[in-house]
């Protein structure tokens, strides 16, 4: 494995920006949704719209939608979906405000400010949604923001979510480089980095580099399929686990350690099915 001290500098930083922004906007939804759901009349006064049963009902509805957005982005970590629905919501809000401008305006000055705010939020939401979609290739479910093991202990997510870390006795730049070059079958390393699902940090005490993966690969067959696959050691998260072990061994030792019962190296499937194969040299016809 070639090594160079400067390789790490040229390395693009993972796209944590959009993920952080999505989380901020996700929380912002509820900050905005709270007065709409708990004090809709005061909220209408604040944005310069007349209070009647119709405008109050709309305000309540939009407030609930804002809370749902928070749940989607923060609790379910469906950032991409959450952001695109926010874009749709912003469009609806703008239409509502424009309608109010025509028919139910109480204070045009305030309404103008409200319209301007919605425009700004729309721009931020659209930017974040596009950035997340680009980063994820548009076809991978949302990962987490990887704010760090021991910092946020969120254990949510679907049945395939993997939160795992290894320490590799090599400097960060070499580990990052090797991570890119290793033949992963469980994920695309560049995508993982781009969405911030993998982090490299210095291990304390001259022990090299910690590699943290927090990733939720798609679960074919949903949670039932994933659970069934798990019993056979075949689910996507187990695959990531195995490959991370092989990666560590390969980077540190230059080989993938093989035993007679696990000739391919670490393998959850083998471990579960180990009874099938005794620890004997593998014959030519095997």
């Amino acid at each position, binding site marked *: 494995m070639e090594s160079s001290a400067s390789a790490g500098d040229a390395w693009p930083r993972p796209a944590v920006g959009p993920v952080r922004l999505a989380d901020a906007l996700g929380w912002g939804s509820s900050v905005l949704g709270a007065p709409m759901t708990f004090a809709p009349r005061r909220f209408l006064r604040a944005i310069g719209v007349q209070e009647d049963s119709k405008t109050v009902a709309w305000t309540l509805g939009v407030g609930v939608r804002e809370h749902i957005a928070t749940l989607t982005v923060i609790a379910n970590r469906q950032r991409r979906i959450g952001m695109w629905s926010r874009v749709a919501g912003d469009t609806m809000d703008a239409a509502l405000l424009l309608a109010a401008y025509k028919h139910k305006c109480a204070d045009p000055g305030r309404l103008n400010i409200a319209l301007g705010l919605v425009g700004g939020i729309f721009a931020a939401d659209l930017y974040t949604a596009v950035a997340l979609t680009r980063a994820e290739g548009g076809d991978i479910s949302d990962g987490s923001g990887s704010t760090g093991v021991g910092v946020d202990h969120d254990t949510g997510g679907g049945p395939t979510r993997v939160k795992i870390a290894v320490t590799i006795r090599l400097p960060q730049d070499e580990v990052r480089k090797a991570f890119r070059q290793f033949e992963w079958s469980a994920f695309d390393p560049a995508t993982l980095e781009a969405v911030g699902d993998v982090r490299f940090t210095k291990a304390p005490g001259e022990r090299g580099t910690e590699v943290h993966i927090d990733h939720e690969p798609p679960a074919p067959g949903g949670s039932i399929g994933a659970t069934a696959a798990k019993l056979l050691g075949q689910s996507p998260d187990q695959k990531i686990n195995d490959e991370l072990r092989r990666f560590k061994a390969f980077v*540190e030792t230059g*080989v993938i*350690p093989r*035993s007679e019962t*696990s000739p391919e190296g*670490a393998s959850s499937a083998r471990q579960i099915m*180990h009874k099938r194969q005794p*620890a004997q*040299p593998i014959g030519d016809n095997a």
Partner: protein
Amino acid sequence: MRATCWSGRNTVQVENVPDPKILTDRDAIVKISSTSICGSDLHLYDGYVPSMTKGDILGHEFMGEVVEVGKGVSNLQVGDRVVVPFPISCGNCNMCAKGLFSLCENSNPNAGMAEKLWGHAPCGIFGYSALTGGYAGGQAEYARVPFADVGPIKIENDSLTDDQVLFLSDVFPTGYMAVEVCDIKPGDVVAVWGAGPVGLFAIASAIMLGAERVIAIDRFDYRLDKAREAGATDLIDYEQVSVPVVLKEMTGGRGPDACIDAVGLEAHHSHPVIHGYDRVKQAARLETERPHAIREAIMCCGNGGTVSIAGVYGGFMDKFPIGSLMNRSLTVKTGQAHVHRYLRPLLQRIENGEIDPSFVVSHHLALDDAPKGYEMFKHKTDNCTKVVLNP
């Protein structure tokens, strides 16, 4: 080739199996000249270690001649005479770098299984169940040795016999480490439970490391005789006397400064009711251990002393005297031996004539007689202390 295969509880068979092949660049193939049966093999034989599969090749103490090397093994050549340490260690990871070779992070491809049982995984071990990697063992004509550039030690002195160097693979370093971790000071009294090969090497090492008195505890007279030969100053037959009472008396009421458990999970108790209690729980899998020796070692250890556990344990036990341990400032030291770090210094001691490890050998058998060797060693018949198989 011929190989000793586990074929269910209390049975091994010597079978024809495929010859080993190089699987990675850091492998070597060794043609085995001598290989021995270890107390650890008995735990597999007796069925106390989970994750065994019928057909698993046993054996982790072996030596022989290098007959093939992988591309990445530059320090060995075909024809070299080598002793192979039982832990498989990469030499590159953080644990190997610290000299904790039996905790190598890369050599156990089944680490995930071990983590479920133990939280974190130890290294891969030859012929020692799927939990420690599922590697084929060395009670065979040939063995594949992974990370052969790190483990095997070349024996260049042809005047040393196999019996003199074979035990560098395991029991000599194991016994030595069990004492070394106790940090023996002049005047210290060491008590050793179990006078099997591990206990015998612990006794010899305690003398080498400067202990004042070394007390051997077992129930087989012929093994206690060997303990005397190894240098023990006092012998206790635990079936004849109460060990705690005698140890207290022998040490002026203080208790030994270091207590070494060289027995492990299949201990025997002189009191049939107590033995029966743990035996039944073990058989019913309510506890995995029969922990008489370790319980006694803790209770007997002098205040502020060290309890060193060389005997192997697998899972869980009850009635562990944690109160005695805590209230009396005892230190516990343990681990599968980090064999690699003792190879050179102990070979040096053998060459210097400070110790001749061949004294533990009681039987030489042909490889095909391995089943007989297991039975003798298990039941301690025919004054059996150590069986060496010569393929």
